[in-house]
């Protein structure tokens, strides 16, 4: 589990981002394991189950992690369309 630490403050801003990323994930059929592995490679700090929970809008995560998840998805999709 990701420890929320001191940066829980940034969260209210992220509601839209959260829905956006989760929705984007649902529209693709990217396997969760593939997304997690890529996100981990970017320096991501959550385990796969927390990522799953986040993508199902069941877990709030710090903004920095949201940015990495969104970035992982974008970079993966770029590779797909080639």
């Amino acid at each position: 589990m990701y420890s929320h630490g001191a940066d829980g403050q940034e969260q209210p801003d992220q509601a839209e981002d959260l829905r956006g990323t989760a929705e984007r994930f649902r529209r693709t059929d990217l396997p969760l394991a593939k997304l997690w592995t890529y996100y981990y490679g970017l320096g991501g700090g959550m385990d796969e189950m927390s990522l799953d929970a986040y993508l199902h809008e069941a877990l709030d995560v710090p903004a920095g992690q949201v940015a990495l998840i969104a970035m992982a998805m974008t970079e993966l999709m770029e590779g797909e369309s080639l």
Partner: protein
Amino acid sequence: MTDHEHGAGSFSAFPQAAPAPVPTPAPDLETRLKELVLDSKDVVGFLTDLALIASSRLSSPGNRIHSGVTVMRRKRPEAVASSDVAARALDELQNGFKDGPCLTALRNGTTLLVPDLAEERRWAHYIKAAQENGVSSILAVPLNLAGEAEAVLNLYSGCSNGFTDEDISTAEAFANQAASSLRLVLRIAQLSEARNDLALAMQSRTVIDMAIGAIMAENRCSRDTAFQILTKASSSRNIKLRDVAAAVISSISGEKQIDTYFDE
């Protein structure tokens, strides 16, 4: 073995003397499939071999059977392998129409026989196009992959009533055995893909973590802030995070190659 047979690209409704099916003393199918699983380099190679075996087992003098395999991939049907170009063209044609006997068999999970295309009233557009390509009968046998994927074996004949009851049970028995081999191949492919993804992730993470550390030292900032700086640079320049990180490192130390080593 994965090469397409040459000269097999055309249909003929007229019985021909050639090409005779190779009458090799058929090695026991199970052994053959096991070898294929071990030898195949990838899923497509394996499926191409399957199509070739299906075609040679079911063809008889004067009734050449063309075979292809369609797989559902990312919710879309895709012709992934075939015994020859004619079968490939027919599979792609059907996928283009998004409907036809093979896709129906795939959806229903049951074998579907069109004994004579001239008599068939369903899938009018596809049937017409298939007839123009010289097909007279079609047999579609789904491969039961226990939910891991969906695939169907498509068999085409230039003769009407080109599939006897015996042919149908042969094809079904074959599909049954082939399905469990295919599940094995799929699982091996998945595992090696996951392994490759992880190896790439380790490489990328090493570079990124190193750059984060460098940014922290340079800016006297927290890890989160360093990440923000790096992700911002990446999205504003539309460069992959990993490449931005590599640029940060080489700007500091001139090192271009950061390796992560594993025991392979």
